[in-house]
């Protein structure tokens, strides 16, 4: 456990973690000023894979930009597309058929589980345990197969359309999703037995990197980072959108504020997502997946629109400023990890470097999503 020590500022050296380092899970560099094993100061350097999605948003027409969203966050791509289609639909007044919204919610939740599973495996691997990654990838494979059958791709989905979906789900998908739910529940029990109770694992996380509510608020943290610090905030509940009010699910909140709390939140979220999928499959209405009336060319009226959604990594927001043209006048993508990563600099001071890496893992970073 890290504790503040007496630091002698004249005995420090600079350590570069990254830009190519396995613990950063992407091209991220942290310039750390070290005093022995302790961090005196840290400066995160991002932007190594900045692609200027926001400029592409201004240059491309609305449908052309759809595929960019899944390149932002490659682990939970569908949540990001969801935010974008919702804001354009809201601005242009396109009505989405109920069936399409239900399928969207099911797909987004499946994708959320896939993302959390990958995070779980990678996080435990950061801490030195290799086999959980293999188990997690095995479960994730089932989800990817299901999503591939419907959407046509395994990672960078371009499945949502303005007003609906590209493809309807078939009986086979429903059957395999139903089969997946008990399987995943069984696996969760296995994970808890294998990892959560492990004494080495707990020692590495318990009491490490406490984040106060105030820090979260000042930095605008969301997802498990906020919920692990006792903040009951989930856009699906706080600002209900799509068909989420129809589902009965809980928001896991932990008050310990440490890395273990963030881990626990994500593990509990898998169960909650399973509940949503289960209810979604039960309630899945019939009908079309695209609206009958839809403008041929998407041209939202002049104005300024905002939509937030809860992705696997937190509150993702899209601001659309339209001047009534075929392309957006301005498209701002508010990335949740950007805010979550920002608090790392301040919070890791005085920490042991190994604890800081565990802390970084608990933030669930996807670098292309920070850099956009």
């Amino acid at each position, binding site marked *: 456990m890290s504790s503040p020590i007496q630091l002698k500022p004249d005995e420090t050296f600079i350590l570069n973690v990254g830009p190519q380092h396995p613990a950063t899970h992407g091209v991220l560099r942290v310039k750390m000023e070290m005093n022995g094993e302790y961090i005196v100061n840290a400066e995160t350097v*991002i*932007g190594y894979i*900045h692609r*200027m999605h*926001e*400029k592409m948003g*201004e240059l491309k027409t609305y449908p052309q930009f759809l595929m960019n969203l899944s390149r932002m966050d490659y682990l939970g791509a569908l949540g990001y597309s969801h935010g974008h289609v919702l*804001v354009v639909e*809201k601005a242009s007044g396109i009505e989405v058929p109920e069936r399409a919204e239900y399928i969207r919610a099911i797909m987004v939740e499946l994708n959320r589980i896939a993302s959390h599973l990958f995070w779980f495996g990678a996080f435990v691997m950061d801490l030195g345990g290799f086999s959980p990654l293999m188990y997690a990838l095995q479960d994730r494979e089932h989800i990817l197969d299901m999503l591939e059958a419907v959407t046509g791709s395994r990672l960078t989905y371009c499945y949502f359309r303005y007003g609906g979906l590209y493809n309807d789900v078939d009986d086979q998908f429903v059957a395999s999703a139903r089969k997946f739910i008990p399987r995943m529940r069984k696996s969760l029990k296995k994970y808890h037995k294998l990892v959560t109770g492990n004494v080495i694992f707990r020692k590495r996380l318990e009491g490490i990197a406490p984040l106060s509510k105030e820090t*979260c*608020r*000042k*930095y*605008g*943290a969301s997802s498990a980072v*906020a919920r692990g610090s006792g*903040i*009951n*905030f989930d856009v699906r*509940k*706080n*600002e209900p959108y799509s068909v989420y009010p129809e589902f009965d699910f809980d928001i896991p909140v932990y008050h310990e504020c440490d890395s273990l709390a963030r881990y626990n939140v994500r593990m509990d979220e898998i169960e909650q997502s399973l509940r949503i999928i289960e209810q979604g499959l039960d309630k899945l209405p019939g009908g079309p997946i695209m609206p009958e009336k839809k403008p041929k060319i998407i041209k939202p*009226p002049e*104005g*300024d*629109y*905002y*939509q*937030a959604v809860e992705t696997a990594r937190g*509150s993702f*927001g899209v*601001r659309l*400023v339209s001047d009534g043209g075929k392309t957006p*006048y*301005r498209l*701002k993508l*508010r990335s949740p990890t*950007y*805010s979550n990563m*920002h*608090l790392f600099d*301040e919070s890791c001071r005085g920490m042991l470097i190994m604890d800081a890496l565990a802390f970084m893992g608990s933030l669930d970073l996807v670098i292309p999503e920070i*850099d*956009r």
Partner: protein
Amino acid sequence: MICEETKRALQKLFPADEVIAETPEEAVDDSEKKAKKPVPRANGLLERDYAVHGYHLDAQVAADQVVEAVGILDKADFFIESITGVDWIKDNQLEVIYDFSRYDFDLCRVVIRTRVDRNNPEVPTITEIYAGANWHERETHDFFGIKFIGHPHLIPLLLPEDADFHPLLKDYKA
């Protein structure tokens, strides 16, 4: 509830002004709209329809009022969502937009915006109030060249470290 309180608090920034309710879209005649040359919005507080725009309060303030307006939101426990800019090249202005929301179930989204001269875009920093504004302001400086006066570390964040261009300006040519 909190929306009402925040509205009253923000209202004090605009003396003598009433809250202008948004004119419904139908009320404005289409031909009339086209004939009128659009003028930049005057400073003031608007109540927006959440179902249409996705936020409740929309305050446009002068650049030197930003810190005060953000201070009001900080006292009311809002969290910072993002900061961004828009280039209104026709009006020769740059707009900075601050988004705020709440962690509790008292849903209230507030947008603070300010417009500055395009040739000399300067806005005071709010990093003293919200430490998380640091990166958002650096990003806005990257993309639009807006200078945040008093920012502790205003160097390129997402763009290369020697970047001297601002890609989201409408007259930027690659």
